[in-house]
């Protein structure tokens, strides 16, 4: 009987200490979870946290920028943002593979789409490559006749003036568009613009909720808290059951 009582006391103690330890984190997880649940209503997904709050561990530097000189302008990609000079013109999760200035349009190619913009950055059209080419292109070029050309696997295709139909062409007819280093003022403006709009409050809350805010070990800490909470449920149930007996 005394042994049983000692065992119950020990379980009680464990339950109490685990509860105290997890309590603080539970508050953290609960509050961030409630805020996340209402992030759309509170527009947390549209408001950006100050750059020094970023806390995502990602470091954005000039080497993160891919850029192409397109006529008198620059088309650049920094993470998922695409810029015409320093103006953000679209968001794409796929890689920028080239940009050129044709028929008074800025032709921007990402791995999944062809984007056409006017010189003020207004979108003219976005079209999926699968509707035009046999596979996703890997490189952009321009023919001697100033037509858009794309490399698909080992083959090259060029399009007509309206960019509606595509025909195979010999590789030597295409002049490949190469990436280049944009001027320093553009790099600096992009970095400033990106850092000021890099993390939404929703992302910040998500990082807080999942523990990523503390780096990769933060996730394991939250895992541990989750396991402790599960243990608390079991130990609480066991204590209750034993009391009834």
């Amino acid at each position, binding site marked *: 009987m005394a042994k049983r009582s000692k065992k119950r006391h020990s379980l009680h103690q464990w339950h109490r200490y685990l509860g105290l330890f997890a309590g603080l984190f539970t508050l953290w997880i609960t509050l961030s979870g409630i805020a996340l649940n209402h992030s759309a209503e509170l527009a947390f997904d549209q408001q950006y946290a100050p750059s020094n709050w970023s806390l995502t561990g990602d470091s954005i530097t000039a080497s993160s920028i891919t850029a192409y000189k397109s006529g008198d302008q620059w088309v650049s990609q920094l993470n998922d943002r695409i810029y015409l000079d320093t103006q953000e013109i679209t968001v794409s999760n796929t890689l920028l593979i080239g940009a050129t200035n044709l028929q008074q349009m800025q032709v921007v190619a990402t791995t999944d789409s062809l984007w056409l913009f006017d010189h003020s950055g207004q979108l003219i059209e976005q079209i999926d490559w*699968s509707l035009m080419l046999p596979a996703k292109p890997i490189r952009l070029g321009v023919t001697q006749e100033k037509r858009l050309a794309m490399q698909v696997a080992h083959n090259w295709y060029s399009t007509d003036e309206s960019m*509606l139909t595509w025909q195979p062409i010999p590789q030597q007819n295409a002049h490949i568009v190469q990436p280049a280093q944009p001027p320093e003022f553009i790099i600096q403006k992009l970095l400033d613009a990106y850092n000021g709009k890099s993390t939404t409050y929703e992302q910040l809350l998500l990082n807080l909720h999942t523990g990523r805010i503390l780096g990769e070990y933060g996730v394991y800490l939250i895992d541990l808290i989750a396991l402790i909470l599960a243990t608390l449920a079991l130990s609480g149930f066991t204590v209750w059951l034993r009391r009834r007996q």
Partner: protein
Amino acid sequence: MKRWFTLGLLLLSAASLSAKGVYQTPEAFIQAGFQSEPPTQNVIWLNQPLKKTMADILGHTYSGLRVRYWGKGNRTAWVLNEIGKEKPITIGVIVRAGQLEQVAILTFRESRGGEIRHPSFTDQFINAKLKNDHALDKPIDGISGATLSVRAVKKIAKLALFLHQQTPFSDGKTQ
């Protein structure tokens, strides 16, 4: 006990199901829709009056100055995107002589509302026409839990019918 366990398993499996995915590539949609007669690819440039009507239909401004489509005879095909709740749904529409011939969900990116991809929903659009007030001339039953996705498909169906009227294929004289 066994009953509760089974119920728990069912709930868990239902929660893990996601309707996200590419159901048909735009290319396959066009090919399937024009099997015997390959269509020509065309564009409509959008002037201010067109953009205004499109904005009325969509409830927001259309981001683009031209729209690509495929046409043959009196039929046109459209591959258009519209946001359901948060992410764009890619929808394929074929219009024949001012009536909807086919509506298909090509890519669904939202986590909820994927039921709109089922033919039991999309087949309701067949033969629907556009009324003068840019509404569909037949009722479309919604799906509970997929209200925003249903709304997005209706908007695109109306938009495709409106854009079809702007093409030379609307009178069936263009080959």
